[in-house]
């Protein structure tokens, strides 16, 4: 694990620096870092602190927590196809945002859209806890998540379907593709507390996930409280996914591909995978956010589109490569 982190953390740092130096204003990296850290006169410190810094911070936070939550979900469900979106929280957060756009609430004040998305996420979590309470089985949790996703997805489609306003409809469609463009420090401060709580909850699950490698009965006999473990995984994932979706829209594939890709690095152990996957998720989202700006500087290529576009074929490649091992 330490070796993987020794490679990934410098990579994350380098990508953060590169991302900070990218933008319409052509400024060298040392110059932009100096403006960021020391301030000074002119527009550059403002550009760095109010435009580029939030973008990098959000990529770090969202990518890192998606990697972490993906590893936690896969470890808890003992299924490499699990991902943070499985709980239906991201779909519900998206529905909240869509309703805000459609009703015009999103134009009322700056944080109206992310706040309605958070409200959608909270409603989803409450339903999840009622449906998949302390006595529920793992399967109940998955089915509840699938049902929530389906309902939220259908309602989102209904809003689009009945939208009398083509501008609102196209805004909804673009928002749902996920992006980190034009976010401010306000978005960072809004997401930060939820993500901090989520990370704290997920930080304590490594031991339980390791034990779950041997199945629920064996884990339970080794002193793991399964009901508590499930609550931590569900609430932790919901917090980070809800907050992430609220400020950046739906960004797929990071939480699925990254844990899968890095599993071999930690010898398959789900506990150590958590932190390696968090670092990997941050690196992947930073790289993707750099790529959207390099590939199409003036077309506003959406981040979620790129992560899926790059992630899915890559995933296919992994499946292709591992097909021999499973036979």
């Amino acid at each position: 694990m330490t070796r993987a982190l020794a490679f990934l953390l410098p990579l994350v740092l380098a990508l953060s620096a590169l991302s900070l130096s990218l933008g319409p204003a052509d400024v060298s990296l040392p110059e932009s870092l100096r403006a960021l850290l020391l301030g000074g006169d002119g527009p550059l410190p403002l550009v760095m602190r109010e435009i580029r810094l939030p973008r990098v911070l959000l990529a770090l936070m969202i990518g890192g927590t998606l990697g972490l939550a993906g590893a936690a979900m896969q470890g808890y469900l003992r299924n490499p196809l699990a991902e943070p979106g499985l709980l239906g929280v991201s779909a519900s957060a998206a529905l909240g945002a869509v309703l805000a756009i459609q009703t015009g609430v999103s134009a009322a004040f700056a944080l109206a859209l992310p706040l309605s998305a958070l409200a959608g996420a909270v409603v989803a979590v409450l339903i999840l806890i009622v449906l998949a309470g302390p006595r529920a089985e793992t399967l109940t949790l998955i089915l509840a998540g699938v049902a929530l996703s389906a309902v939220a997805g259908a309602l989102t489609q209904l809003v689009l379907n009945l939208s009398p306003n083509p501008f609102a409809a196209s805004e909804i469609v673009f928002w749902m593709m996920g992006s980190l463009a034009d976010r401010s420090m306000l978005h960072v401060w809004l997401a930060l507390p939820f993500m901090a709580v989520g990370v704290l909850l997920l930080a304590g699950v490594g031991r339980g996930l390791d034990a779950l490698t041997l199945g629920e009965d064996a884990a339970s006999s080794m002193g793991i409280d399964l009901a508590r473990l499930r609550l931590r995984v569900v609430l932790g994932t919901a917090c980070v996914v809800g907050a992430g979706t609220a400020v950046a829209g739906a960004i797929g594939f990071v939480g699925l591909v990254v844990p899968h890709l890095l599993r071999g690095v930690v010898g398959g152990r789900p506990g150590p995978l958590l932190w390696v996957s968090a670092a990997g998720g941050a690196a992947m989202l930073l790289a993707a956010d750099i790529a959207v700006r390099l590939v199409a500087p003036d077309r506003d290529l959406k981040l979620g589109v790129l992560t899926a576009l790059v992630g899915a074929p890559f995933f296919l490649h992994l499946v292709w490569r591992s097909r021999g091992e499973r036979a």
Partner: protein
Amino acid sequence: MSLLSLENLSVTLRGRKVFSDISLTIGPREVVGLIGPNGAGKTSLMRAALGLIPSGGRSSLAGLTPQQRAKAVAWMPQAREIAWPVKVEDLVSLGRLPHGDHAQAPVEAAIAKMGLEGLRKRRSTNLSGGEQARALLARALAQETPLLMADEPTAGLDPAHQIATMEVFGTLAAEGHGVLLSLHDIGLAARHCTRLVLLAEGRLLADGAPEAVLTDELLARGFGITAYHAQTPDGPVFQPMHRAR
């Protein structure tokens, strides 16, 4: 000193009474074989004893906190589940989890005892069924508990692996541990257990030395079979022959 004591234990699953009023004590240096037909409640008895499912009556283990219990008993469920391709040595190290230490000595001892030295760097999901069973048993040994409980530890193993597994339990008992296992193979049970407990008809039919439990009458009542039996210099031999009429 007893390692496990059950008093009037009863289990009801989904409205069906599985068994009731079972009292049982297991001490050190014993290999106790839990036998009985399918559905008699062997697995439920062990899970209830561990406190993994609700039950009536009392189990000395169910009253412990999960952390205390994990230091008192190691449990091997029948399903040999290994979810991720972890190295064999990492799998065995999971036995140290309840102790919260990374002690290498018990892990190395368990690897040596199960003859896993040559497999320690292999991915456990790539092992054969017999090798996985050995790795999982090594995990339970690394937990270093006074009592070991295993559900059908010999199921699906070839005769050599079955004998080797039962011999490990014998060694454990000789070292002062107590062992409780459910078994379907009466011959194996008679040969390797110091004591048998026959579970049938929703209760404990017999509890005692193998010869005292595997009588013609109890085999007919409990399993509905007749068996050939003989005494050999190596101990008693039982071979199920016919269904009883």
